[in-house]
């Protein structure tokens, strides 16, 4: 079981043009900002939207191509989980889960028994007779997952499955979803704008911005080596572009960064905010990366204060609330920022 697709959709200013492949048992996360075309991509993969070009191949069967092969959604083997669960409000939870079995010809009693089994697997045993409106958000999303998986589809599509849940519920449902995705043998595509979902659930991540793939890789790769500002911000890094010569990178915006490895040619430099130290005067010793910068904003961020800095280099520093208080900084203040060369990640552009 596998998915291979090339999807082209033109919608006004946005042109979506994405190629992807998902192997058996693999979970691909499509990560991107709102309006990047992620949901459009998923609707095309489901057969709910006709693309302007390309092809969708599931298990070697072309279900859509621009030569005229168009298999409608209801004739495909797929399960889909929607952001706000979309359980049918007029049916009981068990009937919702059994719906796909019934439309595919299963007998009522058989469908009901299978549905009950799935409700048990997602932790909703005994709630089958309830209406969707009587479930909590987390329970409803579990029921929606059971409804999508019950027919053992070749393709599982998840459209922002956790984003409608509150933070605590999201944590538990995410863990359960991870377990069910692990058991699932088909190809799964997860669309999300939350990097934590992508990192926690996916085997591979596709970053889509403005209708194009800007980065692809394992979650760890994407988290360590972001290639766009959007991804860098998501994973909490500052991304700087430059050109490497030896252990020095000349940044595109002027200035330079010293790095630990030998590099040549166009590179990205990624800096973790917690590795940036702030001083009121030029620090003693000889750290190679020291810049006089200006504090633009300071925002409390859990136990630290996130300081956005401007000057030769646009940096972000996370300092402890205590340090921040001792430094007595206010927006507009001049500070010295330093970062060790060994703390800077550098990789080819």
């Amino acid at each position, binding site marked *: 079981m596998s998915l291979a697709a090339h999807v082209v959709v033109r919608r006004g200013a946005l042109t979506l043009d994405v190629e992807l492949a998902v192997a058996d048992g693999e979970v691909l996360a499509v990560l991107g900002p709102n309006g990047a075309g992620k949901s459009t991509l998923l609707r095309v993969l489901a057969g709910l939207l006709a693309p302007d070009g390309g092809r969708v191949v599931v298990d070697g069967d072309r279900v859509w191509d621009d030569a005229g092969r168009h298999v409608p959604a*209801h004739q495909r083997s*797929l399960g889909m989980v929607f952001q706000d669960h979309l359980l049918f409000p007029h049916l009981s939870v068990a009937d919702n889960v059994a719906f796909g079995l019934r439309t595919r010809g299963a007998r009522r009693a058989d469908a009901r028994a299978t549905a009950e089994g799935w409700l048990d697997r997602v932790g909703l045993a005994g709630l089958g007779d309830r209406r969707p409106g009587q479930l909590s958000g987390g329970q409803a999303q579990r029921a929606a997952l059971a409804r999508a998986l019950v027919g053992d589809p070749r393709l599982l599509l998840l459209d922002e499955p956790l984003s409608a849940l509150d933070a605590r519920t999201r944590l538990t449902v995410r863990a359960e979803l991870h377990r069910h995705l692990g058991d699932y043998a088909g190809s799964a595509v997860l669309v999300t704008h939350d990097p934590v979902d992508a990192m926690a659930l996916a085997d591979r991540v596709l970053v889509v911005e403005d209708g194009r793939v800007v980065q692809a890789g394992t979650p760890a790769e994407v988290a360590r080596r972001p290639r766009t500002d959007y991804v860098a911000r998501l994973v909490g890094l500052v991304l700087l572009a430059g050109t490497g010569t030896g252990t020095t990178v000349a940044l595109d915006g002027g200035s330079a960064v010293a790095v630990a490895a030998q590099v040549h040619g166009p590179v990205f430099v990624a800096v973790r905010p917690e590795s940036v130290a702030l001083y009121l005067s030029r620090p003693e010793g000889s750290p190679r990366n020291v810049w006089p910068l200006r504090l633009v904003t300071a925002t409390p961020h859990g136990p630290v204060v996130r300081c956005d800095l401007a000057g030769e280099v646009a940096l972000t520093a996370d300092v402890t609330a205590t340090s921040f208080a001792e430094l007595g900084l206010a927006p507009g203040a001049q500070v010295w920022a330093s970062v060790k060369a060994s703390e800077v990640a550098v990789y080819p552009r």
Partner: protein
Amino acid sequence: MPVPLLVPALLAVGFLVLPLVGLVVRAPWPEIGAQLARPGVGEALRLSLVSATLATLLSLLLGVPLAWVLARSQVRGRSLLRALVTVPLVLPPVVGGVALFLVLGRQGIVGRWLFEATGFSLPFTTAAVVVAETFVAMPFLVISVEGALRAADARFEDAAATLGADRWTTFRRVTLPLVAPGVAAGAVLCWARALGEFGATITFAGNFPGTTQTMPLAVYLTLQRDPEAAIVLSLVLLAVSLATLLLLRGRWLGRGAVG
């Protein structure tokens, strides 16, 4: 409650309810038993209820699919189609009756062919009452159901498609139950309109006791002769329709709300 809403609302209630009060006050209560026992009253009432119910069923059968086409399909000229099917709302019902003659009468475009082939002529039959009432009342149902379909979340239909349901199954098992309250409201509106229908019925179906004389026709003709008796008949029609609507609301509409 804000006064700018409360005052007009009270005026509206007075405007709509006072004529009813007038009927009740002017009704010759001592004679009401005798009036009700007159031959033909029960017959006209039965005919009204039966024909309005049949007209509503016919409207459901044809009007719900039409509403779906108007709300969901991508056919060209949809807005023109919508305007055309709501014409009976603005057409004076008497003109509607004449128009039905021109199509379904024994000299009509379709009716002529039917009459020559079978000798059957629709006007002046109970079926003609149902046809006239359907013509006038179906747009109410179509508009209600189309509104409900537009308001319903079409993504439920996407969800059904991903679960293997073709469009017809989706319509039956998802769309229709979702808009059931809208369909019920439309059917009630349609039934009430059909029950009170006068102009198209008396024109196209004529007036004959037991065959085509519904309550509104009986009321109108009685008004020519005996206004007090006409008031009694109107009150009977009112009481029966109110009772029916209240019963339906309790039994059916109240439970129909979902989500």
